[in-house]
């Protein structure tokens, strides 16, 4: 087991930077998930940790030892690839045993360790099959077997569940989590799937455009996103992000015809552009007029246990999570209330989070609603 420290790591291809200086510290035994959209540099960072990509500048240390120039196999890392990367001409047994054979482990010990790994991953019955004779989930388990048999200090997972169907993905996600609890090895998991990220992570690292946007626990990141990007990326359906402007006395007004509602206060000067955020499950929808923002329901998505209503609020789209019901809402006028304690405020230029004075905002909201009504 070992901790991982990444200091100001940069990567450029032909002079074009793709990672702009990443700093990370992952404690021993932690399960860290790097999440971000395609092309954000998360896989590049993982490959640099593995030693499969050169580091343009900066330092990567595993267990206190700088690994920049160390061969991938000597870094104490084992990697599980997105496409499994099994050796097609070898049986499951040979695949799992290959790293041990290369390390010169005696045959008897090798067999014991392969059998143990196969038992943990329920692969005992498939040991003599070729990868082509296995399902996607079984192949992924073989890839994990090949990783755990090495007893590495750090496990690296490069989007290992992306090629699996939805049901299998959930099963494998649970298996990975159980495996981590059992082996307790430091693990770094790269994904673009925020549900995977939220459910697996002890520490969540959100990346965007070659930079780390936020590091924290899944709940911290969900509840207090550090930027509009994080707010929009984490959570399904995504957080509603509405353009607004700071008015007189720091009052925030939606950028909509007639500025229908003042919602909160902030310390920015008047005229500053901001982005107002609220999670769809925090928006309160009422079918009777009287309070909140007037809106029209454009579309309702049925999810079985709940519904998502997509509403038009003064030209902006807002999604609202509603409890399951047969009440037809599409095309109907509704009124949306945005509780101040659930509002998030971001600087529209930098995208960074701002702290708003929500108590005052509540009063303002009420006053504005009266004006609108």
């Amino acid at each position, binding site marked *: 087991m070992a901790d991982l420290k990444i200091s100001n790591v940069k990567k450029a291809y032909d002079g074009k930077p793709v990672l702009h200086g990443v700093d990370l510290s992952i404690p021993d035994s932690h399960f860290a998930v790097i999440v971000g959209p395609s092309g954000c540099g998360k896989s590049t960072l993982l490959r640099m940790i593995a030693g499969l990509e050169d580091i343009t500048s900066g330092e990567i240390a595993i267990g206190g030892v700088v690994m920049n120039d160390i*061969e991938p*196999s000597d870094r104490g890392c084992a990697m599980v690839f997105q496409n499994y*990367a099994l*050796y097609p001409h070898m049986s499951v047994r040979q695949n799992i045993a290959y790293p041990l054979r290369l390390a010169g482990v005696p045959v008897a010990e090798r067999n014991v360790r392969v059998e143990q790994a196969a038992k943990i991953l329920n692969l005992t019955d498939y040991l003599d099959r070729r990868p082509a004779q296995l399902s996607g989930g079984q192949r992924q388990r073989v890839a994990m077997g090949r990783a755990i048999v090495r007893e590495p200090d750090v496990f690296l997972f490069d989007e290992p569940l992306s090629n699996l169907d939805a049901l299998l993905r959930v099963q494998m996600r649970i298996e990975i989590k159980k495996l981590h609890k059992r082996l307790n090895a430091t693990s770094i998991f790269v994904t673009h799937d925020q549900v995977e990220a939220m459910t697996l992570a002890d520490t969540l690292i959100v990346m965007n455009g070659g930079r780390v946007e936020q590091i924290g626990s899944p709940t911290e990141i969900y509840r207090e996103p550090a930027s509009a990007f994080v707010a929009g990326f984490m959570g399904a359906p995504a957080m509603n992000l509405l353009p607004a402007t700071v008015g007189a006395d720091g009052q925030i007004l939606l950028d909509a015809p007639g500025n229908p509602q003042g919602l909160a206060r902030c310390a920015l000067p008047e005229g500053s552009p901001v982005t107002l955020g609220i999670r769809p499950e925090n928006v309160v929808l009422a079918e009777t007029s009287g309070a909140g923002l007037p809106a029209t329901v454009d579309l309702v998505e049925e999810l079985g246990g709940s519904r998502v209503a997509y509403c038009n609020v003064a030209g902006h789209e807002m999604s609202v999570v509603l409890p399951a019901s047969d009440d037809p809402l599409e095309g109907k006028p509704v009124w949306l209330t945005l509780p101040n304690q659930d509002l998030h405020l971001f600087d529209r230029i930098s995208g960074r989070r701002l702290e708003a004075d929500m108590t005052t905002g509540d009063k303002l909201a009420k006053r504005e609603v009266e004006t609108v009504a």
Partner: protein
Amino acid sequence: MTTEALRAPRIATRPLRRISEKSGLDTAAGHVLMVLLSIFCLFPVYWMLASSLRPANAMFETSLVPTSMSLDNYTQAIDAIPIARMLINTLVFSVLSTVFQLLTGIIAAFAFARWKFRFDKLVYTAIALTWLVPFQVVMIPNYLLIAQMGLLDSVAALILPNLAAALAILLLAQAMRGFPREVIEAARMDGARNWRILWEVLVPNLRGTIASLAILIFISSWNEYFWPLLLSRTAENSVIQIGIQMFMTAEGNQWGPLMAASTLASLPVLLIYIVLQRQVVQSFMKSGIR
């Protein structure tokens, strides 16, 4: 287009064909074409065999099946040239050329597929260009070199310029570039260095390409005529293609023994194909060389 136009049941306005009927007709037409092509390809081989069995006085008969049969042509051919020796020479030349071209091809292709180095594209292009240079351009320099080495009239001299070939390098480099990068990276993570990656991961997975390439090189070496003709001085150090040519003289062609020698020359290749038929077809299908 209006909404009504989009909703109109266009499918119902045209006759619907059953998939099986269509594919049945296509398959039958395909089979007829393949049978005709097969007859076109196999007829010269059959005619060679039939002619080799015709007695000298019936050599120019045009009947499809020989009216009388004899093995005299084979006896004459075996008496006229050291045919066994020539077949062994051809086999040694073909097998060693195949092995060496594959070996050099695999190693060179790995370098091109795996590493980026200065002028790599230039070197690769230069190798590709050597493939386009006709044999007639390089035969004189090659001949002089072999003569200076004192290797004229030897099997070694036949093999020497065939130790490496552009075709093998280009085909294998392409196959290696198409091999999943992740598998090679997984091998690196597992502790394999380049030599092991090449022989334990890449080569076993490129068996299809290597097998089809081996067959191509072997057949092309087996049929080599011009280079052995330049170097050979004695029948004992020559190959079977030169032996066949010995029946074509200024006084006239000895068609019977010529056909018998040709049949004997075809037998080893035919035997290899019969034994490895399944693997040969599979490897050509897998490697995409058809």
